[in-house]
């Protein structure tokens, strides 16, 4: 159902190259932002706000793609579309999938930290 790789090694290597000393800061920033976003997604479902849900999913998608986590990006895209289409009943399942994928990414990324 999702054939994207968990981690884009190439993108990540380029990021390391570009960020140099700030690579660690970037990863930490991303990880913190992402867990914040997951709670935002949950609370948006709780308050039945598909608009806020879609926007958070959109930002999450962008930064995940940038950091080199294409499968997470793909899951966020599905969440974003669900929000836009006002299908919040399906949203919980997607957020669960996002959370599982994120934990996986988090484990892997932490290995990149010094």
């Amino acid at each position, binding site marked *: 159902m999702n054939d994207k790789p968990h981690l884009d090694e190439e*993108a990540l290597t380029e990021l390391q190259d570009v960020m140099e000393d700030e690579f660690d800061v970037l990863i930490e920033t*991303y990880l913190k932002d992402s867990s914040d976003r997951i709670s935002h997604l949950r609370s948006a479902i709780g308050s039945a706000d598909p608009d806020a849900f879609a926007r958070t999913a*959109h930002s999450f998608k962008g*930064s995940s793609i940038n950091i080199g986590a294409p499968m997470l990006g793909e899951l966020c895209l599905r969440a974003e579309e669900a929000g836009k289409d006002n299908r919040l009943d399906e949203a919980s399942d997607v957020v669960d999938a996002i959370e599982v994928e994120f934990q996986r990414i988090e484990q892997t990324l932490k290995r990149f930290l010094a």
Partner: protein
Amino acid sequence: MTDSKPLRILIADDSDSDRLILKTLMKRLGHQVRATANGSEAVAIFPEYLPDVVLLDVMMPVMDGITAAREIKAMAGEELVPVIFLTSLTDAGALARCLDAGGDDFLTKPYNKIIIQAKLGAFNRMRQMHKTLSQQRDLIRERNRQLLEEQQLAKRVFDNIAHTGCLNADNIRHHVSPMSIFNGDILFACPRPAGGMHILIGDFTGHGLPAAIGALPIAEIFYGMTSMGFSGNDVLREVNDKLGRILPTGMFCCAAMIQADFHLNQLRIWNGGLPDVVLLRKGGPRELVPSRHLPLGVLDSARFDATMELFHTSAGDTLLMMTDGVLEAENEQAERYGEGRLKQALDTAPAGEPPIDTVLGAIRSFTGEQSGHDDLTLVSLDMVVASDFHESAERLPQSALKGPAQWHCVYEVRDDTLAQFSPLPLLLHICMEVPGLRRKSADIYTLLSELYTNALEHGVLGLSSDLKTSPDGFSYYYSERERRLEQVSGHYIRFTLTHSMTRKGGKLIITCEDSGQGFDHSSQITTGAADESGNANIKYSGRGLLLMQKLGHSLRYSEYGSRAEIVYDWELAIKQPGGWS
């Protein structure tokens, strides 16, 4: 190029990690960066940071990228500040909306260093090109404004020197485009001191300032010499000589010169390179006076022929002259108006319509009405009864400067100089040094020229004015005059001028003596008087003497008519309330 020069880059992205990546990337590429978290902050920073490139995320809280792009483009005004949208969007419609909002391009996530570098380089080149273009456009705009300002100024100076003279006389109609001096056309008219007028119409090769500069000395010579009483061919010779000296090779002036005499009902016409001058006889056929000479400024003075063709006219005849712009006027199909259409327009003209209106109307309907932009110069002259044409010399302001008042001079013209030279302008000039006499220039010129003509033709050349009573005799008289002039030798004409002041003004005594046999002036005066009392066929010779008697205080002949003396009393103008009249 300037690719290596650091750019100022403004970023707006609400995602901390994305912003961090972009900011670091840009710094690594050697640029200066200001990063903000939403569109509103970017808009606020823009005016003081003045970035070279703006990078905007599309979806942001507070103010989204599309709104920010519009505001930034509005603030940038004419300056090109590339706006690049940052997006993970992939659907074409959404990308197109970004560009519609004023975006210049987009960058998709994940960011790629090489693509970003290439895009920034491309936009920087575009920005530089836009800047160069804007600067050049501003420069051209400024130069053009300067040029127009200079042209207006030049036109004011030009109009002061090359004023329209007597173009507003009742018997002249004319059309010139407003900035005609800059398309090289000239049109001047000036009354002659003895009555009648000169008209000069011309067309310089070339356009713009060079053409206008060439026109200035022509105007000075034309007005100066005409006012001093020089004849049309004297003016032509002088103008030709001057232009020959000042104009570069290949630049010259096609022109026609008209000398109109309303007393004698005569026109003298010289056409050098202009379209045919058209003489429309009242109720009769048209006569064409084609160009028989090279334009002014081509030949040196030795080879220049200033001979003017003589035409006898009647009141009601009209002379029409135009520059090449008339025949060269083009319609939308790039066809030229041409001589054929001109002829047809005149053939089918409604009775009573001034010919110049006929021609102008026909050209307008041919070219399809763009009256403000024409390159047309036309003038028409109606032959009128002499008394209907009023000279304006009497209206000249009196000079406040004191000039010579008590003086005496003798000027004698001798031998073959009699055939080549007219002393009249010089003598008139001497008389005009007396300030109060300036307003009487027409009178003085008439007196001098009648005395001189009588002394030369009747005295020195021994021609009888009886010859002039028939049209055949008239032309015989003039050909005989030419013949005898060529052979004249051992003769003289001597003018003695004496001026003194009187209580009311001054007294000018003109004596004219010649070396001829004398002539019977008394019979001529009688003949003239008889003509005055009812005979419409006025004899040319009698008119002069009558005129002199009327103008001068007294006219006295002695030595069998070879010595004539005129006493001319003149009065200062009375000072009216409000100035000198």
